[in-house]
């Protein structure tokens, strides 16, 4: 066998080697990516669960607070506080209530007057 022929027979098949190496890298990389994705799913799932739990806790706290507020601001509770003197209110007696008449329009301008003083109008007319 000639030297040239021997050299040719022992040549490394680079193309094939690269092909298999690439297949190996892709297969290994794919496997690793799968594991990484799976791991991410679990991690994200745990985070979502934790956030869900936090949200439920917050909702519950909010509801408890709302319930407490409703109880403390209920008519029955306010009355109880008034009865025990916690809220100081003085009842308005009838002689301290003034009922205003409906607003009337001024005769000349048509402007609305919340208070009309008929007496002064009459006195003006007398002077005229």
């Amino acid at each position, binding site marked *: 066998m000639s030297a040239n022929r021997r050299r040719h027979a022992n040549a490394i098949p680079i193309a094939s080697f690269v092909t298999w190496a690439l297949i190996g890298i892709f297969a290994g990389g794919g496997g690793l990516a799968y594991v990484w994705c799976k791991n991410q799913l*679990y991690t994200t799932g745990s985070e979502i669960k934790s956030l869900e739990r936090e949200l*439920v806790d917050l*909702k*519950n706290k909010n509801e*408890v607070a709302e319930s407490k507020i*409703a109880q403390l601001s209920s*008519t029955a509770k306010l009355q109880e506080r008034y009865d025990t003197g916690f809220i100081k209110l003085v009842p308005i007696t009838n002689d301290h209530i003034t009922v205003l008449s409906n607003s009337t329009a001024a005769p000349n301008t048509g402007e609305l007057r919340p208070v009309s003083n008929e007496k002064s109008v009459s006195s003006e007319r007398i002077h005229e």
Partner: protein
Amino acid sequence: MNHTAQKRALFSCFALAGCFTVFSARLIDLQVTKHDEYAKIALEIHGTRQTKPAQRGRIMDIHGESLAQNEPVRTVVADATLINDHAEMATLLSTALGIPHAQVMEKLSRTVYSQALKKEMPSPYIVLKKEVPVNVTSDLSAKLAERKMRGIAFETASTRVYPNEHMLCHVLGYVNGRNEGVDGVERTMDQFLRGHDGFRYSERDRTGKEIFVYRGQERDARNGNNVRLTIDMGLQNIVEMEMDAAIKQFHPKSATVILMQPKTGEILALSNRPNYNPNVQEGVPEDHRRDRAVTDGVEPGSTFKIVTTTAALTEKIVRADTMINCENGYFASFHLHDHHPYPDLSVHDILVHSSNIGAAKLGIQLGDQRFYDYVRRFGFGERTGVNLPGEVSGIVHPLHAWSKYSITRIPMGQEVEATPLQIVTAMSAIANGGHLMMPQIIHDITDEQGHVIAKFPAQEIRQVASKAATDAVRDALVDVVSPKGTAALAHVVGYKVAGKTGTAQKYDEKTHLPSHERYTVSFVGFMPADDPAFACLVLVDEAQVSHDKNYGGMVAAPVFSRIAEKAARYLGLKPTVEEPMGSVMVHNDYRDQ
């Protein structure tokens, strides 16, 4: 390769192939043939269906004040398959939840038969305690985590809370352990208040933790709708305070007050005694739960004379000034007495003096059929249709069951039974010019976002009387609340009040005769008389007062007066009657029959 080596290689190949064939067969057996069986076992062990509980809707008053709402609580549940040391767990739980140690041990040692495994196994679902406050479960959860103990779960639930406790209890009602309405508006509006639970399918690992990636089908809960009542808590509070004062003063067996808007039929306030706290279900007598305003019929007594008079005036048989012979106090043909002898009274004065003989004669003039028709037209003998449970129709005997005395007894409010709500509804028809309105307790229903999904507008049932007749009756009722009438104590300074007293003797079961000691007294009126803002009924059953004071004009009328005065201020009603400061009403006779 020689022959022996070839044989060995062939044998090895066959052995290997046989091995793989066996493995493959087993794999097919597990994955295909017995798939369903093993999937069922796996699902039983690891799969769960979590319920996402829906929130029950709120009940509010007309101004949005919360009257019934939810408070989150937890149901503590144990999975005995995951608990290693029952005794240690029982010690921890009994301390935290306040349950006896032996009871927890008994619960944790429960077993169930597993159909899949074909054997007894520790129960995976044991309810230890319901309605545990959230703060208690938070502490317990922290302790469990600290000691690395597992097998305890906390299910989200909610409990119904009534912030005003006893107030308005009969209208609101209450719910049972499954959050279903049992009484009151909670019951009648249950289909709107109740939401729809959601769910989530998921799987758990062997430690009981949810495997997020295996979450399956999921549906969110749909919360219930909110119900807004026509009740005004400001007015309800006034009524409750005056009821308490009346109960303290008269110690009656029961009492009812209803405040109604006569033009629309909206119930503004409703209160009964005895009452109860809907937050505490244990130990409440059934008798206290009854909403007497709709479930109890009473003999209306003289308040029923408004029906007789209105009917006679509408039919134009008489005018308000027509004189009726009142037989000087004794109508011999029908064995009928007046409390005071009157020779002749106008139709107007028959109401003012509450003459039984006068009312009976009006009934006779109307005749059985016509009078019966008017009684029914005013809504007696049929349910009003209010959205409250347990309403009765009252009793109005059919014409063929009437005796010869019935036409003289029914016009004065005997031989009939009416609910307090029917009485105030009839009076509202007088107040609004003859329109019988359907009583309303629900204003509207809104969803979670506040969008109105149902409204309950005012509903006229029928025109029951002419405007002229109701005006004439109203004028007479104004005089009833005057010094010459039977209800001077119902007067409210600054306002024109119209109303009618009623005093009904109760039936004595021992003597089978009307009792002279037990009375149902009432006052039903409206204010201001010319443009009524509200109609109010005060009904007191068996007030503990002396015989000579047990009249509607002396027991119920003053309660009406106090309620009406405060209600007028609350509603900002403008006084229409000028009265001298410090004027004192003089009353001469509060008695009626």
